[in-house]
Structure formats: C-alpha cells, structure tokens
C-alpha cells in the first residue's frame, strides 16, 4: 500500500514543466545555501577577502581580456554578414579568420621583433587557408 502523499500524477499538457520546476527549485535552494554560507564567510573575514580581490584585480590584464572579447564578437558578426556576400563558399570564414588571427596574435605577442611579425603574418594567412581547404574542399563541410 503506497501512502497518499507519495502518489503523483502528471498532467500531460503540463508535463513539459514538471521536471524543470523541480530542478529550478533545487537550483534556487542550492544557490541560497551558497549565498548564505558565502555571506557568513565574508562577514567573518571581509578584510582578507577584499585583499584577495584586490590582488586578483592587480594581476588582471584588462586590455588583453577586453580586446579578446571585442575581437570574438567582431569575428562572429563579420563572418555572419560576409557570408551573405559569398554564400556557401566558406570565403567569409577564410578572410575573417585571417584578419582575426592576425589581430589576436598581435594582441597576445609580447615581443615585436621583425621576425616575430613575419611569422605572425605567415601563420595568419596559411593556417586559415589550410583549415578552409581541408574542411571545405576535402571534407565538403558547410562553412560560413
């Protein structure tokens, strides 16, 4: 005999919400426990935690991190827009990737010697070309 409180019926029309609701409540419960326990830790040791945050902020490279995010968004947008200009050829991917690789390499490099710049230039042209040729021409994959 199953006790009444353990009996459950699921209305088919609402069945798509049954499991997500349970998961949402569990997630909210866990998040609340997390917030409460962290607030208690923060109250106990706020000076130390502020110091840790300040230390972390000091080692943070805002320029490279921010520029990486901008480059990623510009890369995706440009690839999408240019794929209307050259549809189903992968050329949008090819040219955008060349520009993206050059920009990102220049952003990350620390040593701006002539030889380094030549290697960056060659890598930015040849790497996307090889990837494009292999995927679009050999494997016949759809590229933007």
């Amino acid at each position, binding site marked *: 005999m199953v006790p009444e409180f*353990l009996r459950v019926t699921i209305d088919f029309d609402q069945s798509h919400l*049954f*499991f997500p609701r349970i998961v949402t409540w569990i997630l909210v419960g866990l998040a609340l426990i997390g917030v409460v326990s962290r607030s208690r830790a923060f109250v106990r040791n706020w000076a130390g935690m502020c110091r840790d945050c300040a230390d972390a902020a000091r080692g943070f490279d805002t320029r490279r991190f921010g520029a*990486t995010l901008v480059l990623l968004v510009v890369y995706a947008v440009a*690839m999408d827009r240019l794929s209307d200009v050259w549809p189903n050829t992968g050329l949008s*991917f090819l040219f955008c990737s060349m520009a993206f690789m050059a920009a990102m*390499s220049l952003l990350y490099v620390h040593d701006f010697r002539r030889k380094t710049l030549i290697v*960056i230039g060659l890598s930015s042209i040849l790497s996307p070309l090889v990837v494009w040729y292999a995927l679009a021409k050999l494997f016949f994959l*759809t590229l933007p």
Partner: protein
Amino acid sequence: MDFLAAITPLELMLVVSGVMIGIVFGAIPGMTATMAVAVCLPMTYGLSLNNSLALLLGLYVGGISGGLVPAILINIPGTPSSITTTFDGYPMAQKGEAERALKIGIVSSLIGGLFSAVVLFLFAPALADLAIKFSYVEKFLIILFALTIIASLSKNLLNGAISGVLGIWLSLVGTYDLNTGGNGDIRLVPGFLEDILINGFSLLPVLIGLFGLTVILEEAAKGVPPEPLSHFKLGDGKPFRFSVFRGHFGTLFRSSAIGTFIGLLPGIGGSAASVLAYAQQKNLSKHPERLGTGEPEGVMASESSNNGLTGGALIPLVSLGIPGDSTTAVMIGAFTLQGLQLGPLFIGEHLDSWHEIMTNLVLANIVMFLVMFFAIRHIVKVIQVPKHLLYPLIVVMCAVGSYSANSGIMFDVWTFLLFGVFGYFGHKVGLESAPFIIGFILGKDAEVYFVKSIESYGNLAIFFTKSPIAMGLWVLIALSLGYAFYQAWRNHRRECGA
C-alpha cells in the same frame, strides 16, 4: 584477432595523427586532452564512425600522456593529471636525469593505458549486460548516483552540486521532445528567444566553448604570459634502463588500478587519480621520505595512474552512456554526430565499433609509446610553441567546429562564445566544468526517465522499492553523499584549526 587485421592504413594514420596532436596539446601547459578532442571534433564531421574513433582515441591518449613533458622539464604540469609527476620528475631533471625521468614516465603511461584497456575489454560488456535489464527507474537512479558522485568528489561539495544542477537546468531549455514521449511544448525560454532556442543549446558548441574558449580567456586575463622558453637540458646523468622497473611492478599495477577505478567514477579527472595513486605510493613505499626528491617510483605511480584513467573512463561511457571524465564527455558529441546512442545496447548492436574502440585504444597506447620514447628529444621542443600563434588558431577551429556541428547554424557560434564566457566567469565564482557538462549531457535523459517512471507507476515510492538494484543504488547514493559530508566536515575542521 580478426579485428586487428581490419585496421586500415587511414585508421592507422588517424591514430598516429591523433596521438601526435594530442601530445602537443598535452605538452603545452594550460591545454588539455579535453581541449584537443573539442578542437579537433570538426575533423570528424567528414569521417566515418570508425575513423572518428581512431582520431579521437589517439587524441585522448596522446593528450593525457603529453602532460608529463613540461611537468618533468619545467615543473609545470601540462595537464591537471600530471600534477604529481612534477613532485619527482622535476627533481630528477634538476639532477640531470630529465631524459631518464621522461622515459620512465612514458613506459609507465604505456603500462597504465594497456592495463585500463584490458579492464575495459573485460568489464564494459558485463556492465552493459547488467544495465540492459534496467527500467526507467534504475536508469534514473544511475544518473542520480553519477551526479552525486561528481558533486561529492568536486573541490567543493556545494559548488559541484550547483554546477551539476545548473547543467541539468540548461539542458532542459527548449522543447520537451515528442520523440521521447514529451508533449512538444517549449519551456525555460523567454518569448523573444523562442525561435532560436526552440531546440535548446546544442551539445557540441557548449562543449567547445567550455573547454576551448574558457582556457584562452583565462590566459588573456593573465596577459598571456610569455612561454617559459626554459633552458632545460635532457641531461647526461644516469641513462634510462628498463631495469629501473625491477621491484616496482606492484607500484605500476596498483597505480594503474587506482587510475582505472577513478576513471570509472563519472566526472572525476585524472588529477584525482594521480594524487590518490601518489598518496598510496607514499603510504606503501619502503622509503617514503625520498618521495618528492626525485624518486623514479613517484613518476611511475603518477603516470601509470593518469593513463589508467583512459580505459576506466570509457567503461561507463560505452556501457551506460555516462561519461567517465570531461574528455569522454566531449566524445559523446562525436557519437551523437554519427547518430549513435551510447548505452547498454551499444556493444551488442555495434560490435564492430566496440572492437574498433578496443583496437584503437591499444593501438593509440602503442603509438604513443613509440612516438614519445624514440622522439622525446624533438617532442620537448613543443613547449616552446608560442601561444600568440596557437590560441588564435584554436579559436578559429572552435568557431568552425561549432558552426558545422549542425550543418551550418550561426547561432551555434554564438552558443560557443556564450559558453566560453560563461565558463570563464563561472570558474571565478567557483562553478566546475566537469559536473556542469555531465549534468548538461545527462539532464534530458534524467527528465525522461524520471517522468516516465512516475507516469508508469504513479507514485514516488517506486524509486525505492522497484527492485533490489534500485535499493542497492540508493545505498551507493547515500554512501557517496555521506562521504561528501564527511569530507566537507573534515575540511571545515582543518580550516578552523589552521
């Protein structure tokens, strides 16, 4: 042995390429075997399943093994699983025995890998035979057990639990699939996004973003420090001889077994395997005080355990459809692309592919040994590959992999970027990738099994009373939670005492 003869030249070439690319990824600090598999997934789009397996298993074994190179030469583990290799490998390198330490590590990796392949071969079909009898109730409990283990062995119990549940929650975004008995309605999506999120987030772009882009953003935040070009020398100290293993077969066997067992547990990375094996070695060594000062047995324990993980992690993958670690989680993406469902029926229905997995795993270990053992002097140069050339190429590969995952959908590229950024900020607030991704992969199945169980039986008691297996699974769930709470309590006491 027929299946050994069935290896085609193309498969052999793919295993060799996979191992070599994997070694490169493993040998560069910050890049992992998981990243290697994620980045190379687009290459499998145009390959058959068997050829894809050859490439992916090569990447997996190469990626795990490559981590020992920087661990020994520059004291930085190439992959998290090589952390304990630094303890004795680097001191050996400082004594002028770098080449000897590398070769001890390579041979130990081979032994660990082959040991785990044997266990996989013997154990996976037996587990699949057992799992085939599971109803929806037991299948749900298996997933629940996997998730509790992941959470309990995470760095922080609460963070691990939140990560896993968040992964499940995000996997439910989109339509409740009619093909799995759902009602076809959409949920957890704001109205203005319904058109693009009707099918939810695709698995591959999520994986590629989390394991490919997050690492690059973390490096960017640190300013992409220049490579430790390092003035390492392979050394002219004691030469390597196989006799170094005399008297250490117990170490190799025990550490390989620990690695394989840890691999069996879902979501637990190689770092846990190597740390546990190293700790055991220290407990059982005749000279525990020497460990950490450049003892070959330390390198043996670490490297045999982390390669032992490979076959172990494949056991729950092929027999239950549950990934054993983050790399095998990414491999699920490759199987999905080929339209294959991993789980209890996989071995019986795809015997050829099962044999391919076994053959390629053994082959990948042998190729890894041959490549690394005889070309180690060249491989060490990989550490010097500049990140400013490598990272942009990885982003390009990730972008094209995401775009092609569903035959050309631009939203998948945005998903990849979104989850890359999410991974970066998630790590900052303590979220963990492995529990998250395993929750994401298993979330939809968990829903189907849970809802169908209730629809079939109409009560919650069935989860406890369905069968002796269900009861046994509850005992395991209780044990894993009990262990987690005990660990959390011990850590708390230690912190209070400090």
